[in-house]
């Protein structure tokens, strides 16, 4: 597959501050890539560097086979949907949509026709003569999207486009954006701090922290095999449990640092005495049936949303697990938790990198 956007060895400094560190990223044509991470991780800086709104300090940025490092934004042929939407307040919806065409010198009638076509796709047909201030948040969001679509750009850049919408609309727009992406056969780069958005929308998720790409890959691969503790904790909700542990004498099991010094077998060997973190997702913990092995905990709190029950334990560290049925568990009760060996993740306690397979 041809690469639509390629970044190799990209660095970005703001004075002494190292905002992007050796970024390597290849985005194939037609892909939907999500850049995700906590605030300040550099995801927006990376997107703005793609757009040309920031210049990169070193490395190569290639868009559709052309090196774009020093190209101004207007010559990169990328369209961006801003978090604030950045609609032109003094122009009607139609004028907002046709702005790029008018700049290019496209004939009035032709631009009008293009605007009507795009408006039909995004459901703005009745709003073409309104001003942005007369629109709701969701409608403005659609205008921002339409303004990008009308250009048939080399790629779409989304900078947290849904963060100003309410929860219900956000879920709806998520699907709509993805559907539009598929329909247009576009290449999209989508910045978000919401891992659910990233997981549900993207083909390829890039997780960043402190200017570094921590891991990238298909959403479920990241979920199944997080490369380090940060990724493991970032992907998945509620977050993965981490239990400090020490490798036992035989090197094939670990001693959990929980009351009762419980032993857990692992299916690869580690140097005995090594300090590790055992990660286990809340959804993979089950209450053991009688006689089953596992570890014993006492319950601190039970919260039910109706469909799911979240249980937290009174241990240090606190452990969360999920029950998919109604439960009569109460705080103070003791239960034995069990899980399948294939569902545990082991991380080095010091480097926090994944150990074993």
């Amino acid at each position, binding site marked *: 597959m041809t690469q639509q956007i390629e970044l190799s060895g990209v660095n970005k400094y703001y004075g002494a501050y190292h905002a992007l560190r050796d970024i390597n990223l290849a985005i194939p044509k037609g892909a939907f890539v999500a850049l995700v991470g906590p605030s300040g991780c550099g995801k927006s800086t990376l997107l703005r560097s793609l757009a040309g709104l920031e210049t990169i300090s070193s490395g190569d940025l290639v868009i559709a086979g052309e090196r774009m490092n020093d190209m101004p934004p207007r010559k990169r042929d990328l369209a*961006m949907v801003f978090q604030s939407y950045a609609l*032109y*307040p003094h122009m009607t919806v139609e004028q907002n949509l046709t*702005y790029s065409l008018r*700049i290019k010198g496209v004939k009035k009638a032709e631009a009008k026709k293009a605007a009507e076509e795009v408006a039909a796709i995004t459901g703005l047909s009745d709003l073409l003569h309104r001003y*942005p201030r007369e629109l709701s948040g969701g409608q403005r969001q659609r205008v921002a999207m339409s303004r990008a679509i009308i250009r048939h750009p080399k790629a779409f850049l989304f900078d947290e486009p849904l963060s100003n919408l309410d929860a219900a609309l956000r879920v709806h727009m998520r699907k709509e954006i993805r559907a539009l992406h598929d329909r247009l056969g576009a290449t999209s780069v989508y910045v978000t701090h919401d891992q659910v958005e990233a997981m549900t929308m993207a083909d390829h998720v890039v997780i960043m922290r402190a200017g570094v790409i921590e891991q990238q890959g298909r959403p479920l691969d990241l979920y199944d095999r997080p490369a380090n503790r940060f990724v493991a904790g970032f992907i998945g909700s509620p977050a993965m449990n981490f239990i400090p542990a020490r490798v036992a004498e035989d090197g094939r099991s670990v001693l959990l640092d929980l009351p009762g010094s419980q032993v857990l077998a692992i299916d690869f060997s580690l140097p005995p005495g090594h300090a590790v973190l055992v990660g286990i997702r809340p959804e993979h913990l089950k209450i053991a049936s009688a006689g089953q092995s596992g570890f014993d905990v006492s319950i601190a709190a039970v919260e039910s949303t109706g469909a799911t029950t979240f249980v937290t334990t009174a241990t240090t560290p606190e452990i969360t697990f999920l029950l998919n049925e109604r439960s009569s568990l109460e705080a103070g009760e003791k239960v034995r938790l069990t899980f399948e060996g294939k569902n545990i993740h082991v991380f080095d306690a010091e480097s926090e990198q994944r150990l074993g397979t």
Partner: protein
Amino acid sequence: MRRILSSVRDGRGFDIVLVGVPFAFLFALAGLPLIYNILMSFQEVDMFSLGSVIRPFVGVDNYVALFRQPETWPILTNTLIFVVGSIAGQFVIGFGLALFFWTNFPGASWLRGLFLVSWVMPGLVVGAIWNWILSGDFGVLNFFLRESGLITANIFWRSDPSFSLWAVVIANIWLGTSFNMILLSVGLSAIPGDLYEAADMDGANAWQRFWTITLPMMRSTIGAIIALGLIFTLQQFDLFAAITDGGPNNSSNVAQYWAWDLSFRQYDFGRGATISVIMTVFVMFAAAVYVRSTRHEVRG
């Protein structure tokens, strides 16, 4: 006691008092003189009848006589030139400076503040400074023009009838530019930066961004500043008094200076008032434009 107090505070009467006090103040100190001025323009006023309010009513005689005077049209033309020249100069230079400081080079905001020095100076002081600069024999302006080869002989800015008005216009531009610059700077900084980023991504170059984003977004600021400029230039009196005294031979005389000259030098109070009324109409128009444009804020 508290009930009495709150009944006073919540009653309709109290609201009327609150509105009434400033209204009475305005009426006494601005409304009455204005009305008195309009009244005088329809009366025959001389030194002896100055003390009384009831004077011979002459209808529009003052207006008719005023426009029969040979100097009236030249002076009104001068006023127009002064207003248009001053506003154009102040606005263009002020906008240029505002855009320049908008690039935010190190020290820009500090330097921009320093520019206000020219605006806070009293007109008479500015006039005195410009008297020196414009001086015919040893003025700095002539020196630069001569040295750069633009002129061969000295221009006698203040005494040459074809330059005297422009001498005041130049000084007034200097005086008002920084005020324009500050207001326009505020307008510029109120434009959200992401609009420029969006326009840049949409393919617009700097020039296109200026015409399609900056100017339309500045419309209300520009309307306000031109209206204020009209008001301020029609108020400009000190510079005429300090630089040319309206002369030579009325070549730099303008309506506002003439009104004063007629009333308080020639003691023709009726005609002085008549010119004031004509000017009031223009200023009212400018004030209406100002109020309209500050109300018409374009925001998304």
